[in-house]
């Protein structure tokens, strides 16, 4: 797996969620991703970026255009230094929410991408890395 280009985008306030979506949409288009894969990826970004803002108290999105076996893709890491997730199993349950949402953001995002990795510890923030191949 090799990296073609990469960068970091702040996800601090609600408006940054929109900007993050636009950035990822552009990256996915440059990779030649099909509309359907692109929409799934952008929706996952929307969920995770909003989690970063609402639950993580703001953080950053590291993005990279990657390639594996001649297949381009987009890899994103959402990281915050918020309270972390105390019960990961509960958080990964459909319909469970600690806020006022539908409780489908985290689990939905996982189903929308090819690779999903979550690292968290109480008091040490949360790191979610997702990859979608085109």
């Amino acid at each position, binding site marked *: 797996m090799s990296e073609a280009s990469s960068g970091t985008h702040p996800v601090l306030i609600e408006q940054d969620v*929109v900007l993050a*979506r636009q950035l990822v*949409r552009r990256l996915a288009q440059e990779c030649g991703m099909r509309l359907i894969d692109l*929409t*799934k990826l952008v929706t996952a970004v929307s*969920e995770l970026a909003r989690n970063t803002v609402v639950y993580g108290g703001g953080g950053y999105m590291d993005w990279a255009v990657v390639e594996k076996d001649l297949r381009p893709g987009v890899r994103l890491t959402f990281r915050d230094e918020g309270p972390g997730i105390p019960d990961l199993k509960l958080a990964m349950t459909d319909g469970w929410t600690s806020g006022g949402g*539908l409780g489908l953001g985290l689990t939905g995002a996982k*189903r*929308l991408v090819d690779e999903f990795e979550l690292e968290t510890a109480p008091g040490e923030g949360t790191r979610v890395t997702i990859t979608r191949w085109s």
Partner: protein
Amino acid sequence: MATLQAKTIQALQDNRTDLLNEWTHSLEATGATRNLKGDDVKQQTGEFLNLLADALHNSGSQNINHENWAQTRLFLEKLSHSRALIGQDSQQTASFIFALKGPVFALLQREYASDGAHLAEQLWEVSELLDGLGMHTIRTFQKSREAVIKRQQEELLELSTPVVKLWDGVLALPMIGTLDSQRTQVVMESLLQRIVDTGSEIAIIDITGVPTVDTLVAQHLLKTVTAIRLMGADCIISGVRPQIAQTIVHLGLDLQGVVTKANLADALALALKRLGVNVSKAV
């Protein structure tokens, strides 16, 4: 605090034409006058130098908050306001003042060539003064820009909520762009109000113009649908494109019980059918 000496002020007045030329040159060199008319720049630079000379002449103080500087401040406020409106950035606007520094410093150097101590002192004073005026320009520029942005946001809020009547008893709401919570609130309110006003039985929410449907958007839609039902009307969501449909499935959203259609035409056809209206070609 040391002040500008009469000699300095006199020198600024005597060399007005030279200063003006050099200033205009350095403005052009920095690219600050791009998109501006040459005549306007000439008039503005001339007016500013006059105001500066007047203010220095009348006021012993270089405190630009002093009332003798009111004219100069007003001029700069107007200038930065007009620059903000034509879309210049803060750097270009600030350059208007800062580009004057070079010519003035050069002038002082010539005037005080043999008097090092005074040169340093006067340079410092002029520098302080121009910095103050430059900062004032940037501050007002920022305010003008914020006012422009705020106005645009309000216009967008208004623009985004056109509730249209498609038929007697059928309303449609074409949603466009990002559905953040503040806008959705306005949308929901105006739709519910129109349902009451027109006594409509069916409301169609068209999401063709919404690029991303995530859980927050879905939650807003579901709440709106529920509210519409509580008022005794029915709701159809149209514009569910293939990629959106697949995404909704993967997200695990439950839209069962909500009537959805791929496009607005299908939704209207369904609405007419429910109202018992028959549409047929005239033979």
